[in-house]
């Protein structure tokens, strides 16, 4: 009963079950964030005046502690996964919107002019030129969003067993079993790194056109990776 993988029964899940739950609670919001961020970023790209206020708002949102979000949401969505996932989706949004906007903006003017001159309409130009070229920046954003999402799910433990692997942390305290906390931290870190590796692989798959090795990625991609709050620049 004190082993590394002996999960207390009140968590209702085996270790692998917790992992599955954790990934779902962490990744669905990122996916939702991406789906939301694309049109928002598109709007920000279209109407340049929109970008600064959107950035400002998202930064304030980002500063609101996750726990406060969870607590306020309990009344609307109850003690459910949704309560955890909604704030995480919002945080992902905060990271992804600037990443996409910057990525799309990083497309060289010449390339855009060439596309326009060839008779690309705005939609086709966005889908076939801007978005693919912005892919590295978007994936860089996804990497940050995914890592932070995986980490933040654990805070859900505070609102009653909604933290997946994070519940192990609460259990570690309740039953004074540090090994459970170690288990939680290490598992989450490994999951985050695995996701990161997968995303890097995805980028390589999507961008055979990027110079490999030695050559550094485009500044926009880099930027998204280094300033997660992306915002306020």
């Amino acid at each position: 009963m004190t082993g590394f993988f002996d999960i207390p029964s009140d968590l209702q899940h085996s270790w692998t079950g917790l992992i599955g739950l954790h990934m779902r609670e962490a990744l669905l919001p990122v996916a939702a964030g991406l789906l939301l961020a694309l049109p928002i970023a598109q709007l920000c790209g279209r109407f340049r005046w929109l970008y600064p206020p959107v950035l400002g708002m998202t930064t304030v949102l980002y500063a609101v502690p996750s726990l406060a979000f969870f607590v306020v949401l309990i009344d609307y969505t109850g003690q459910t996964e949704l309560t955890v996932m909604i704030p995480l989706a919002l945080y992902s949004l905060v990271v992804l919107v600037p990443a996409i906007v910057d990525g799309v903006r990083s497309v060289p003017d010449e390339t855009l002019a060439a596309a326009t001159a060839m008779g690309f309409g705005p939609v086709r130009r966005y889908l076939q030129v801007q978005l693919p070229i912005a892919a590295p920046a978007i994936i860089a954003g996804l990497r940050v969003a995914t890592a932070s999402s995986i980490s933040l799910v654990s805070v859900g433990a505070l609102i009653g067993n909604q933290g997946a692997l994070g519940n192990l942390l609460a259990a570690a305290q309740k039953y004074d079993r540090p090994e459970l906390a170690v288990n939680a931290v290490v598992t989450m870190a490994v999951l985050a790194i695995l996701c990161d590796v997968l995303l890097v692989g995805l980028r390589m798959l999507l961008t055979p056109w990027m110079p490999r090795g030695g050559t550094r990625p485009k500044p926009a991609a880099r930027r998204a990776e280094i300033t997660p709050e992306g915002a306020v620049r």
Partner: protein
Amino acid sequence: SSSGDTSDNPLDGEKAEAGTVVVGSNNFAESTLLADIYGEALRAKGLKVGYKHNIGSRETTYGLMKNGSITVLPEYNGSLLAYLDPEAGQESAEAVNEAVKAKLDKSLTLLESSPAEDKDSVSVNAETAEKYGLTAESTLADLKDIAPEMVIGGSPEFQTRQQGLKGLETVYGLKFKSFKALDAGGPLTQAALTKNEVQAADVFTTDPTIVKEKFVVLKDPENLFGFANVTPLVSKEGLPQEGVEALNAVSAKLDTETLLDLDAQVQLEKKDPLDVAKAWLKSAGLD
């Protein structure tokens, strides 16, 4: 001994699934243990049982009981009354139960109380006890003069409850130097007491560390913390008659000594609460 098998996925959905009895618990070890005991007893009677563990404080769980998310919750009768009606006096366990039932939401009711009692208490650590000469015979009233020099700890909700800082002030006139938010009698509380970060704290009377760490539990002559008999709070609709009977049978067999022993198994021997619950039910012939 992990327990992915205990339910489908109780975390899904807001309302309890029709026909499933959802047993909830608050975020401390004993509550989990009691929930497991109730749940397994019900399961032994062939009911479909789901768990919603570690929810948080009574403030939260009561809401979930009301809206039907939880069917069964281990409660402490006097503490519940103090939550429902902070002004109410507590003369006897029966009177308390009647008063609670009167105040309860229409959809809820209390089943039979068990003799097992686990009260909130104000305990001081050994150092403080020595300093002020406090013994097992000392009462809360003895703190009157020294309270302003003391930091008291307790779960965050202790700060605002009648059976907490409020009551200590109104009933005993105690005004502490400050309040330090800890957990519900859990490891934070123990650590804070042993490290003397707080001099007094809200400790459950069944807490095995009281003995281990030589905490001194102060007497409560005004009965502020009232009665705290383990009592199942249930939803009238959600629990069928055989369930009611099963839980009453459990209550009949559960006394304070047993509870102390079970708590120690979980908290000191680090056994899984579900295993402890099952083992006890078996030994008590309730499975």
